[in-house]
Every structure is written in structure tokens, then in C-alpha cells.
């Protein structure tokens, strides 16, 4: 395997593990699309980085984190105008990114596309080191902080009456989400990152019973989709980010249909036992 392929695989695997680990909290809170919104905001950071000739990834982390804090503060106030405020932030973010990129030199409009849809195959070693460090931080927050983040996402009022630092936990979650989005942008791109935060979680919870097992299964599915996605994209010469996401969604359908079929089978098997006493015996038993 060539060097760039190994780098692509490592980058995809980092994303495959981190995105669902933090995305599960967003799904829990029914904020599945927030990752997508933060991707839009991060684009302004990318534009700023290209314009100032600083690391676009680092600038994206900073801008997306700021955006996440603003979104969290809007959400906390619970006003109906929050929805509109979020829309402003998202569309402002993507427009700001495009304009800033336009202002920088001509080369970079091509690199803008690579941030939107990911460009695993041009990932450098420095990119990978940064992704690895940020990814490890995200995984640490998502796993070590699980009981507290779970409590605050499951029932925020209860968490408040328990005396938990609700605002600090919410901001931690918001900033970690922003970091995850920017970590994942080299792999699957800003427009697709939300998919890896949500789809493996949605797939896992078809068959799991608890939160911890859902998280573990979702991370496993994320890794699986990332690994096979990179392999398929090389074989079929397709964009790695989009391939990974399509595989994850394909997995979701397979598991959903499989789980529904298993449930139906079990129900059919269990049915004869549930015949009410005194009810007439069925004349024909289909088995």
C-alpha cells in the first residue's frame, strides 16, 4: 500500500471513531443536524486560514468553536427566535467562507472544494498529527464524560436540580462537536461530516438496548464504514468522503430491514403461546 493510501486510511479511521462518539449526544438531544450547521460555520474559518495563509484546519477549529458557543447560548435561552438565529449563523458561515476564499489567491477555490467534500488522498502527515491529537481529545471527552453528558442530554432540568454544572457541560459538548467537525473535514468534508455523527448512531440503536452499548456499537460501525469506504473509493475511483457516507447509510438500511425482519420472526414464533385460554384453537397452524 502506498504512503498516501495509509494516510487516507488513518484519517478516515480517526473520523470514523470520533464522529459517532460525540454525535450520539446530539442524537440524544434531537439536534442531529447541528454538526452540519457547524460545518457551515467552520467554512468561514477555512476561508480565513487561506486568506491569512495560516493553517485552515486550526482556523476552522477556532471559528467553529466560537460558533458552537454562540449556538449553545442561543439554545439555552430557548427563545423561538433561536431557530432563525441559527439559520443566520449557518448561512452567514458558508457565505463568509466563500467570500474569504475569493479574496485569497486563485489557487484556493480548488482547495475550498476539498474542504467541502473532503480530500483524504491529499492529507499530509502534519494534518494527520493534528487530526490525531484533536481526535484523541474528542474521544476522551466523549467517553470519560459520559455519565455527566448523558445526564445533561437526557434530562437537562433534572441535571440542573442535581447541581451539575449544566452550562459548562453544554459548552464542553458544543466545543467538542465543533472540534469533531473540523477534525472530520479532511476526511469526509464539511458538508458530509454530520452524516458520520448521526448515521452510525442511528444504525446501532436499531439493535442496542442501552446508551453505553449504543456508543460502542456506533464507534465500531463508524470505523467499519470509514475503512471499507476508503478501500472501495480507491477501487472504484470515487470520492472517499461520499463513499464512506454512502456505505454508512447502506449499512443503516441493511440493519433496519434485518432488525425488523428478526422482530417479525420472533413475534410469529411467540404468537401461539399468547392464545387466550378458552379461545378456540386455530384450525391450521402456519409454522
Amino acid at each position: 500500500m502506498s504512503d498516501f493510501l495509509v494516510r487516507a486510511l488513518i484519517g478516515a479511521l480517526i473520523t470514523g471513531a470520533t464522529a459517532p462518539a460525540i454525535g450520539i449526544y446530539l442524537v440524544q438531544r434531537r439536534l442531529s443536524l447541528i454538526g452540519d450547521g457547524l460545518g457551515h460555520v467552520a467554512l468561514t474559518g477555512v476561508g480565513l486560514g487561506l486568506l491569512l495563509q495560516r493553517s485552515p484546519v486550526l482556523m476552522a477549529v477556532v471559528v467553529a468553536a466560537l460558533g458552537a458557543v454562540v449556538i449553545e447560548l442561543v439554545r439555552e435561552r430557548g427563545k423561538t427566535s433561536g431557530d432563525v438565529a441559527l439559520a443566520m449563523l449557518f448561512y452567514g458561515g458558508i457565505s463568509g467562507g466563500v467570500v474569504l476564499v475569493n479574496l485569497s489567491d486563485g489557487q484556493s477555490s480548488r482547495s475550498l472544494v476539498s474542504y467541502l467534500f473532503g480530500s483524504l488522498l491529499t492529507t499530509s502527515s502534519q494534518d494527520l498529527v493534528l487530526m490525531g491529537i484533536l481526535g484523541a481529545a474528542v474521544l476522551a471527552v466523549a467517553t470519560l464524560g459520559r455519565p455527566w453528558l448523558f445526564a445533561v442530554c437526557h434530562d437537562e432540568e433534572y441535571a440542573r436540580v442535581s447541581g451539575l454544572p449544566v452550562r459548562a457541560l453544554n459548552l464542553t459538548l458544543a466545543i467538542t462537536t465543533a472540534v469533531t467537525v473540523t477534525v472530520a473535514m479532511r476526511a469526509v468534508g464539511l458538508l458530509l461530516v454530520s452524516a458520520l455523527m448521526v448515521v452510525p448512531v442511528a444504525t446501532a440503536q436499531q439493535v442496542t438496548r442501552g446508551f453505553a452499548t449504543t456508543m460502542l456499537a456506533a464507534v465500531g460501525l463508524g470505523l467499519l464504514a470509514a475503512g471499507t469506504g476508503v478501500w472501495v473509493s480507491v477501487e472504484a475511483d470515487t470520492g472517499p468522503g461520499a463513499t464512506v457516507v454512502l456505505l454508512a447509510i447502506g449499512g443503516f438500511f441493511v440493519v433496519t430491514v434485518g432488525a425488523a425482519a428478526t422482530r417479525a420472526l420472533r413475534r410469529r414464533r411467540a404468537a401461539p403461546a399468547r392464545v387466550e385460554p378458552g379461545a378456540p384453537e386455530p384450525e391450521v397452524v402456519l409454522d
Partner: protein
Amino acid sequence: MTPVVDVEHAVVSYGGRAVLEDVSLAVAPSEVVAILGANGSGKSTLVRSALGLIPLTRGDVRLFGEPLRKFRGWRRIGYVPRRVGAGGGVPATVGEVVASGRLARRGLLRPARSADRRAVDDALTAVGLADRVREPVSTLSGGQQQRVLIARALAGAPELLVLDEPTAGVDAASQEAFAGALRRFVERGGTVLFVAHELGPLRPLITRAVVVHHGSIIHNGRVPEPAGHHAEPDHDHVHPHGPVEQAGFWGAP
């Protein structure tokens, strides 16, 4: 003795409309106080503002003698919110939800100790759901889900339980299990403040009833006796309709 909950001249208003008007209520240690009232009377607002979940427009709240703003002893309070559907978008086991009740006693980022796990088991045993610890909450009945929330509050070994409509839409078996858990909590000296629409099997535990009507307390004393068709033997539905309909009783001090 310092009241456990002390609400003084509380006013809560939304957009200029008063939901609570100058309400004062003190709950002493070991009391079991039921807050009764029709839907929209402000009874839930009263307990939620006492816990700081709804900001007061005017007035003061003290918990265990501390002003709400300075209060840090949240581990002394177990809160049971009104049941919120089947929870979030991700499955969670009964054990995971009840374990949240230990977090007030567990330092931030500290791993769970055997005492935490034992408290979860004990709380589930108290509400009769010990065998369901690994099941997803969403597969339980409404009444069982309500018992899970009560177990979560009990797991933190609180001194005060605050419950918002714990018996609303709960099947008879769950009501009995809940009444049993509450009786044991009270026998150990616990204080209870709860909002209810109907009392059911909780009636014998109650030491004082407070009736809220249109944002004001109109009765504060013994449990109102059912009147009219509510007095029929199999009817335990306490549903105060306010002073106009039952002036003789509700007007009493």
C-alpha cells in the same frame, strides 16, 4: 426549626400575565405536603420556581435555610419531573437512567464506586423494578417509566423529594409501588413536596394539603375531603374547582 423549603411572596409572570401571585409556602422537615389544583392553576410553577427552574419575578426562595442563589446542597434534594415521553433519541437502560441520580454525590469525572452501584440497585428495588435494570426504558409502561424517575431521585439518598405530578396517568400497580417507596422514605424522616391532580394511594401519607387556584393559595391545612360525586366510595379523584363552587369548604382557614 428551619424550613426545608421556604417560598416567600413569590410572583411569577410570563409576559406580564401573573401565573403565581404573592405565594408563600414553608415546608418543615418530615412534612409530606401535597399541592393540589386544577390544570393551569400554577401548582407546577410553584414547585418549579422553588427549585430555581423558573425564575421568580419577585419574592424569595430558601432551601434548607440558604437563599436559592447561594444554595449548593443539591444532593439533599431528589427531583422527579413530570415524565417526558420515552426520553431522548438514543436508547438508555433503566440502570443508566437511575445512575444519573448518583451524579450529585459523585465528584465530576470520578468513576462509579460500589456504593453508587448498590444505591442504584436499592432504589430500583424500592420501586419494584430491580429485575428491569438492563432493559431499555422505552419498553416499559408509562407507570414503570415514572417509577424509574422516582428511583433516580431516591438513588441520591436525598432528604427532600420534590415530585411534579408523580401519579398522573400511572397504572394502579405502579401507584401502589410508588406509595410504598414514598412511605419508606417518609418513615426514615424524609420530607416530601409534591404536585398532584389526584391523590390515590398517597392520601394516608399526606400531612398537609395546599390548594392553588388562579396563582394563589386558597387552602393550606388538612387534606380536603372529597365532595359531591367525588365522595363516592370508588372515587379518589381530588379535583378542586375553587371557591365559587365549594365556598363553604374552600373559604375555611
